[in-house]
């Protein structure tokens, strides 16, 4: 198991007038975020990633020390890695090759005697290609030659190459085919078992019910329900999304 750590949000207010709330994420668990579009779950994930600001405190507690996450650079330093939702506008670089798209976040890992070694980069890529079952022609092909699901896998490989402690996924299976989804689900479970904390925003209820240990439902920029175990039923989730008592 990895280091004992918790990733915390305290007194977080997502919108003026919304009720503050706290959340604690721990290694080994997969937490789902659900809610109707635009009810705060997206903003919550971005605040946790340091990409957005909100009143409250986000911090990573590790071996007795607290590391505040006030911005994206802090998150980066603490290896809290965010995978954006809209891969076309904020994920892939359409002009770059598959290999470069993979390595862009971690170029230092390929340095041998100061210079980038293509061999080292290829070896790293092949590792993730196998683990994520990326179906791709030559690594030098443009990333746009891949299907949506495989582009998403390359983006995940890019994020995982940073060896995250916490992985924040914004609707990772959007526009991804069913077969690929199941590859990703298995991967997420493996990563959790290896000691990563995963937070997954999903627009599909079935997905979070299938995948997550715990579910946070947002409504009006506040936490409307927290479900786990037996209580995780789609009726309860839908009721919480629409603000009705289950």
């Amino acid at each position, binding site marked *: 198991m990895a280091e004992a750590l918790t990733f915390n949000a305290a007194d977080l207010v997502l919108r003026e007038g919304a009720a503050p709330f706290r959340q604690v994420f721990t290694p080994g668990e997969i937490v789902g975020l659900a809610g109707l579009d635009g009810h705060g779950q997206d903003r919550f994930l971005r605040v946790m990633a340091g*990409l957005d600001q909100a009143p409250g405190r986000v911090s990573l507690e590790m071996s007795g020390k607290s590391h505040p996450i006030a911005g*994206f650079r802090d998150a*980066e330093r603490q290896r809290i890695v*965010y995978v*954006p939702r809209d891969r*076309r*506008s*904020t*994920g*892939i*670089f*359409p*002009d*770059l*090759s598959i290999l*470069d798209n993979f*390595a*862009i*976040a971690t*170029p*230092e890992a390929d*340095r041998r005697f*100061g*210079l*980038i070694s293509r061999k080292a980069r290829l070896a790293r890529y092949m590792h993730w290609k196998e683990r994520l079952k990326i179906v791709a*022609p*030559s690594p*030098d*092909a*443009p990333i*746009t030659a891949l299907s949506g699901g495989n582009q998403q896998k390359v983006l995940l490989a*890019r994020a995982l190459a*940073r060896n995250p402690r916490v992985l924040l996924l914004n609707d990772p299976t959007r526009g991804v085919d069913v077969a690929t989804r199941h590859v990703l689900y298995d991967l997420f479970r493996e990563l959790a078992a290896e000691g990563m904390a995963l937070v997954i925003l999903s627009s599909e209820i079935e997905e979070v019910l299938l995948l997550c240990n715990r579910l946070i439902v947002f409504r009006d920029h506040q936490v409307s329900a927290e479900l786990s175990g037996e209580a995780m039923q789609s009726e309860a989730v839908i009721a919480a999304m629409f603000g009705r008592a289950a």
Partner: protein
Amino acid sequence: MSGSMTPALALSLRRYGFGLAILVVLLIANVVMNPARFHPAAWGTLLGMAAPLIGAALASAPVIMAGRGGIDISVGPAMGLVNAVVILLFVHGGIASPWLLWPVALLLGAGIGAINGFLATVVRIQPIVATLGTYLILTGLTLTILPAPLGPAPGWLRSLSGVWSFAPLGVIALCWWGLSRTPFLGQLMAVGSDDRAAYTAGVNVTGVRFLAYVIGGLLVGAAAMMLTALIGSADPKVGTNYTMIAIAAVALGGVSLAGGRGGLIGAAIGAIDIFLLQSLLTAFNVSTYVLQVAYGAVLVLAVVLMALQDRPTKRSHA
């Protein structure tokens, strides 16, 4: 993937193909129309004549590749200032050593690049406005310190024209290759391609863009030395001409003005295209006014053709 070609090769052919095709056509036309001037034995001299333009195009490229409207229109006047300072140091300051003049030229260029970069990336003035400011400042500054042409240039520098101009160009190529083996070049292309995605991937977008201006400035210093070698003197008015023609060369060489596409090879090809076009039209005794019309026409044609070529790929990932 077309046949046995590697995708990388196919990609660079797609990108540079148009500039290369023009290059071949113009080269043949020049050799046929003007056999004396384009005799293979004279190619060294020709390279020397093209060198300042190639240098200016190379200097313009990194900033353009960094995207988000990145452009440095002060390249020409900056070359003019470096040219003036180097000759003033030699003629009035008595400094002749290449070990002093080269660092002065490169540092001066890099300093100007750093100022442009600071204005464009830290203060966040639109690059075209920021570098228009430095364009005017540098033009005036050059005329102030050097109101009239002055010569000569040191002997070693003059001998750097002609065949020997491949030396600075070769060093630039080597340095750029070295740079391609560091994270910088990949990050530059990523920032130019999509700066939001680059930021989310953890790239220091501002830092990369700033560095692009500084590297462009270093190349300005080198281009100014090649210019000084060619004209063998200092001329306060010669530099400004290079700005627009260098940007035309960059566009012709397949470097997207939107950023993220192309490279220094393309910029060099574009510069050689312009030089060959110039030679060809001069051989016909065409007036310099018509010359400008020709540059403009070829540039517009090239950009339109490249846009048409890019259209199917855009659609495939839309």
